[in-house]
C-alpha cells in the first residue's frame, strides 16, 4: 500500500514544479523572518526573487550545525514563539544543543512523512507498534509515534531500556512492528533468546531501525533473529527528525520525502554539487517547514542519490545507506560523540597529557567506548586505590561531557603514537563496510 499516492508517485516534472514553488516560498519566509538568513543572503548578494529554477538553490549559502548552535535557543524560528507547539533538541551535551521548533502544521508534516514510511514497511491500522526509541527531547520516539498514530496503528510507547519488560510486552501484546536502533534490536533479540522466547512465534511483520550507522550484515542479523524484514529510517533533528527518508519493501535505498525535504549531494571539499549517483555529503532543505525552515543544511552524512523507477511504484528519489561522515563524529549507542569533546574533558584534569585514543567496539551488539589515556607523573600514585580513583575521575569527566559511560584505560607514557598533522585518535572497530 502507498500512503499518499499523489505525493509519492507524482510525475517528476510536476514534482519539480511543486518543489520550486515551495522553495521560493520558504526562502522568502526565511529571509523575511530569520535575521540569520537575511544576513547570509545579503552577504552573498542573493535575493529570494533570484530563485527562478530549482538549480538556483546552489546560489544559497549553506547552513551548518554551528550556525544553528549560535542561534540558540530560538534564533532560527520563523514564527512568533506562541505558534511553536513542540520543541526537540539534538543529543549533544557539549555546549548548547541544537533546538528544533515545530508548529502544529509541522507536526502534521512530520506525522505524514512517518506515516508514508511506516506504510512502506507494511503498517496498517491493525498493527501494534512497539516503539523502543526514546521519548523526550530526542526526536526518535515522538516522530515514530506521530506517524504510527496517523496510520492508525496501536502504539506501545515503551521507550528504550527495560529489556526484559520489552520482551514480555512483545509476547503478551502481540506487537507486530518493532522500532529499534540496530544495536538495541540485536541486543533485544539476544535477551529474548535467553529468556526462552521463540522469536519465530512472535509473527513480527516488520522491524524499523534507525539513528545509528548500520550494515547489510546487521540487517541480516536483525531479520534472522526476529524472522521479519527490517527497514531503515533516516532523519535528523535539525531538519525534523525521523521520516526524512525511509526504505520500501525493495530494501534497496531510502525514498527521500522530497516534496518536503529537498536533497542535494555536494563534494565536501569543493562544496560543488556532484552528478546524480555520485557519493558526497547530503545537504537538505526544508521545503514546507513553518517553525524553523532550514536551508541547505550540511548533514555531514555521506551518501548518493539515485533516481529511477522503483518496483514499489513510488517516484521519490532514493538515497543509499549512509556510508560514513565527513567529520569525525561517532555515534555510540545512538549518541553523537566528537573526539574534541573527549579532549575537552581530559584538558580539565591536571596532569593529563593531551594524547589519547578512542576505541569503539561492539562486543555483544552494544557499543562500548574505551578511551586510552597516557599516565603522567602527576596522575600516577604508588597506591592501587588512588590510581583506580584517578581512572574513575577521568571517566566521570568524560561522562559529564558526552553523556555516555566510557572505560578509561591508563597506558604508559609515549605509547600512543604521535602523528604529524592530523592525529588518528579514533579506532572504530565496529564493522560498517558491507
Amino acid at each position, binding site marked *: 500500500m502507498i500512503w499518499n499516492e499523489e505525493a509519492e508517485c507524482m510525475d517528476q516534472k510536476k514534482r519539480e514544479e511543486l518543489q520550486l514553488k515551495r522553495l521560493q516560498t520558504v526562502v522568502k519566509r526565511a529571509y523575511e523572518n530569520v535575521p540569520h538568513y537575511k544576513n547570509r543572503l545579503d552577504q552573498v548578494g542573493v535575493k529570494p526573487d533570484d530563485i527562478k529554477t530549482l538549480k538556483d538553490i546552489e546560489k544559497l549559502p549553506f547552513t551548518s550545525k554551528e550556525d544553528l548552535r549560535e542561534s540558540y535557543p530560538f534564533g532560527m524560528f520563523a514564527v512568533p514563539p506562541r505558534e511553536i507547539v513542540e520543541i526537540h533538541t539534538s543529543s549533544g551535551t557539549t555546549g548548547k544543543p541544537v533546538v528544533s521548533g515545530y508548529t502544529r502544521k509541522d507536526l502534521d508534516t512530520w506525522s505524514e512523512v512517518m506515516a508514508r514510511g511506516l506504510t512502506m514497511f507494511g503498517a496498517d491500522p491493525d498493527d501494534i507498534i512497539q516503539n523502543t526509541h526514546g521519548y523526550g527531547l530526542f526526536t526518535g520516539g515522538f516522530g515514530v509515534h506521530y506517524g504510527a498514530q496517523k496510520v492508525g496503528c496501536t502504539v506501545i510507547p515503551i521507550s528504550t531500556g527495560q529489556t526484559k519488560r520489552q520482551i514480555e510486552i512483545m509476547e503478551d501484546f502481540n506487537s507486530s512492528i518493532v522500532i529499534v536502533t540496530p544495536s538495541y534490536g540485536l541486543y533485544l533479540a539476544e535477551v529474548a533468546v535467553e529468556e526462552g522466547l521463540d522469536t519465530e512465534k512472535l509473527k513480527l511483520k516488520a522491524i524499523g531501525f534507525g539513528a545509528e550507522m548500520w550494515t547489510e550484515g546487521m540487517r541480516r542479523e536483525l531479520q534472522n533473529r526476529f524472522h521479519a524484514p527490517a527497514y531503515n529510517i533516516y532523519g535528523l533533528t535539525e531538519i525534523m527528525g525521523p521520516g526524512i527518508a525511509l526504505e520500501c519493501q525493495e530494501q534497496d535505498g531510502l525514498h527521500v520525502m522530497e516534496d518536503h525535504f529537498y536533497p542535494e549531494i555536494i563534494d565536501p571539499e569543493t562544496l560543488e554539487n556532484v552528478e546524480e549517483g555520485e557519493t558526497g555529503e547530503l545537504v537538505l532543505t526544508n521545503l514546507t517547514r513553518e517553525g524553523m525552515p532550514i536551508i541547505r543544511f550540511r548533514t555531514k552524512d555521506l551518501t548518493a542519490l539515485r533516481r529511477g523507477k522503483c518496483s514499489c511504484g513510488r517516484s521519490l528519489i532514493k538515497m543509499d545507506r549512509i556510508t560514513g561522515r565527513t567529520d569525525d563524529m561517532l555515534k555510540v549507542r545512538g549518541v553523537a560523540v566528537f573526539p574534541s569533546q573527549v579532549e575537552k574533558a581530559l584538558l580539565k584534569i591536571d596532569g593529563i597529557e593531551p594524547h589519547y585514543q578512542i576505541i569503539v567496539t561492539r562486543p555483544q551488539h552494544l557499543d562500548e567506548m574505551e578511551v586510552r589515556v597516557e*599516565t603522567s607523573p602527576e596522575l600516577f*600514585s604508588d*597506591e592501587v586505590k588512588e590510581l583506580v580513583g584517578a581512572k574513575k575521575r577521568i571517566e566521570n569527566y568524560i561522562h559529564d561531557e558526552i553523556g555516555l559511560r566510557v572505560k578509561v584505560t*591508563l597506558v*604508559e607514557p609515549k605509547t600512543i603514537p604521535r602523528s604529524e598533522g592530523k592525529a588518528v585518535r579514533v579506532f572504530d572497530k565496529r564493522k560498517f563496510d558491507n
Partner: protein
Amino acid sequence: MKIKQLSIFLENRKGRMRKALDVLEKGQVSIRALSLADTSDFGILRLIVPEPEGTKKLLEDHDFIVKTGKVVAVRMEDEPGSLGKILGILDENDINLSYLYAFVAKEDMAIVLLHPENIEEGIGALERGGADLISAQEIYEL
C-alpha cells in the same frame, strides 16, 4: 629506618614488565626486593634498589613513570608466626597498612617491607613494640 622504594607504572600488557627489567639490566641495577601489584588494567611494580635516585632517572629516561616512596623494613625470624607478630603490633596501635611484601633473606632470617598509611606512626609503633627495624644500607648489603 625508612627505605626508599621505586614504584613504576606498568600497563597490564604482555612484555611490559620485561621491558622495565631490560632497562635495569642495561643499567646494571641489582634488585634487592620486588613486588608487583596488579589490576585488570594496570600494574604497579615496586622495587628496592641500592641507588634509588639514579635508577629512577634511568627508568624515566626510558619513558617509565616512576615515583619514589618510603617503606619500613623489619627483620624477623624465618619461622611460623613471625609476620603475624609484627602485624599484631600495628593492629594494636590501630595503624592501617596499605601493602606489604616479604622475602627470605638468608637462612633463618626473613624481611618484611611494610607500607603503613602513616609511615611515622608505623615506625613509632613498631619500635615501641620491639620490632627489629633495619636500615636501607643493611638491605642493600644483603
